[in-house]
């Protein structure tokens, strides 16, 4: 009997294609929005977790000035020097210390050129920032000390200068400095803020200071801590040392900041999940609106089809049969909307993930939930109109034009 009712409902749906389409549309939009939001949210969480891994654990970043992160006016605090880095590397908690300075520059090879971020640092930079070499070698101590014109390229720079070719051993021009490529980084992908981390040229910091920037600034110092050392202990030791070196009196605030990268990562993760939750609840509201749309159109449909209901009652339909028919109609419509919405939502999520360069991470439970929810919408919002149809009096219904 239920199968018959589904067939009756299917016939009624096909008989009025436009109305059915409009009814379904609300659910399609709602479900698609929820699916897209949740899937993109999951993808960006996966991306954030990958970034956390790429940052490396137990890494602290020191910057001059009190401010910790983000834009805003920088305080006038003394810059770090290479001496500071040396002192830090003598600390027992430090495993690797990488003083770093960055500057924008154009790099040229033959007729190809690319404007990129030139990073000056030491051989410790690889360990401290969790970079792997795909090819070639790290800086030697002599190259570092002497500020030799050598560099290691990121995959993005390599692609635009050499295509698929091997850059190691070639000579490129960085600003006006001719420079030998000694290594190639393995790809790292997009960073926490969507920036391309592979758009990098790494040179010894003295080379950048002397030959490219022309000043002795050290913008930041990245310290990776020994495995056994907690971030709290590392931070405390580093702060004590730097306060001594910078002669900050007791009772005065630090004029530099020590940022725990793991903290930033977990903050990013929570921002991400809050955003995903927020967008998903907006999407869920649109799903609710879709459900109300179904109720609305089913109610109109009951009025519009009063005579039809009268005919059905006259030929012997019981109120339960009329009720189930209308209920099944609503459920079939909303499930149809759910299925289309899932397909559309996954499509949108796929496109968006491509666009934002994050993993496409569809979740079975989200899809199953959206499906069940759309069926429930049919039942909940279909019930009231269906009951109204079932309660009609046969003669009143028949007399209705």
């Amino acid at each position, binding site marked *: 009997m239920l199968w*018959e009712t589904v067939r009756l409902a299917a016939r009624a749906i096909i008989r009025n294609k436009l109305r059915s389409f409009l009814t379904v549309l609300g659910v399609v939009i709602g479900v698609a929005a929820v699916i897209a939001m949740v899937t993109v949210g999951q993808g960006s969480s996966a991306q954030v977790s990958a970034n956390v891994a790429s940052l490396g654990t137990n890494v602290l970043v020191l910057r001059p000035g009190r401010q910790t992160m983000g834009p805003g006016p920088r305080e006038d605090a003394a810059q770090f020097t290479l001496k500071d880095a040396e002192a830090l590397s003598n600390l027992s908690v430090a495993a690797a210390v990488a003083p770093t300075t960055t500057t924008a520059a154009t790099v040229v090879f033959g007729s190809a050129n690319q404007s990129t971020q030139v990073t000056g640092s030491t051989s410790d930079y690889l360990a401290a920032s969790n970079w792997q070499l795909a090819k070639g070698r790290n800086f030697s101590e002599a190259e570092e000390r002497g500020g030799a014109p050598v560099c290691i390229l990121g995959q993005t720079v390599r692609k635009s200068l050499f295509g698929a070719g091997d850059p190691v051993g070639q000579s490129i021009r960085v600003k006006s400095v001719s420079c030998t490529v000694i290594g190639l980084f393995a790809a790292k992908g997009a960073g926490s803020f969507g920036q391309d981390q592979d758009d990098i040229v790494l040179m010894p910091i003295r080379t950048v200071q002397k030959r490219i920037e022309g000043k002795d600034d050290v913008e930041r110092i990245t310290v990776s801590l020994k495995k056994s050392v907690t971030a709290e202990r590392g931070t405390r030791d580093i702060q004590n040392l730097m306060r001594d070196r910078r002669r900050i009196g007791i009772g005065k605030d630090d004029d530099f900041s020590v940022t725990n990268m793991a903290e930033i990562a977990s903050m990013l993760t929570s921002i991400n999940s809050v955003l995903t939750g927020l967008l998903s609840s907006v999407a869920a509201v649109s799903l609710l609106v879709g459900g109300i749309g179904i109720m609305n159109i089913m109610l109109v449909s009951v009025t519009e089809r009063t005579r039809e209901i009268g005919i059905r009652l006259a*030929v012997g339909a019981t109120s339960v049969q009329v009720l189930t028919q209308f209920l099944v109609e609503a459920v079939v419509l909303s499930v149809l909307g759910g299925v289309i919405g899932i397909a559309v939502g996954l499509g949108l999520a796929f496109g968006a993930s491509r666009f934002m360069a994050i993993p496409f991470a569809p979740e079975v439970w989200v899809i199953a939930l959206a499906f069940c929810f759309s069926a429930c919408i049919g039942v909940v919002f279909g019930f009231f109109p269906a009951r109204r149809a079932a309660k009609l009096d046969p003669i009143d219904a028949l007399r209705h034009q």
Partner: protein
Amino acid sequence: MTPLIELRAVTRSYGKGEAEVRALDGVDLAIRAGEFVAIMGPSGSGKSTAMNIIGCLDRPSSGKFLFKGAELQALDNDQRALIRRNYLGFVFQGFNLLPRTTALENVELPLIYKGIPPARRLPVARSALAKVGLQGREGHDPAQLSGGQQQRVAIARALAGNPSVILADEPTGNLDSHRGHEIMQLLQALNRDEGITIVMVTHEEDIAAYANRLIVFTDGLITRDTGAKAAA
């Protein structure tokens, strides 16, 4: 012999107090199985009201309604639906077919609600359409059929449920006289050959002439009844 249909002192009033309208004002009526009854009377005299009560679409305000000797005036909506489905067939002035639904599907409808599976109901629906001379039109929509053909689909639908009684409220009211007579011949044949009891409301003398018995309503009362003819 118990009558198939019996009304005892049936009244039906609409509205309350000052505005009360007595559509039926104490009607006594007995119709036996196999009769072909025509009901006539001026507009507003209560013919349709009586038909609705006989057809289990409506309930009397007071009095008794018996079908096959059983009192039905107190049944609820669903119990009356079961009576309609099992014993009654309706033919309306306005045909009342489902729009955008084929002739065959319209005729199938009462069988679907009876819970008869497709394999058994399709031949029944087809043969009902054949009986009213519409073989070959199974797939047509009401919109693709003439008024006479639509009314024949409606008769086929009434027949499909294998009813004891066909109730027809002005079945020829929307048809020209030629089509009207065709429909009457069809009903007459069903009454004669299949023994189906027919109760029909009409405004036309020549249509009423097909029946074996004439009942006239005036102001909610039966004012004339030719009684069952010997043939019935």
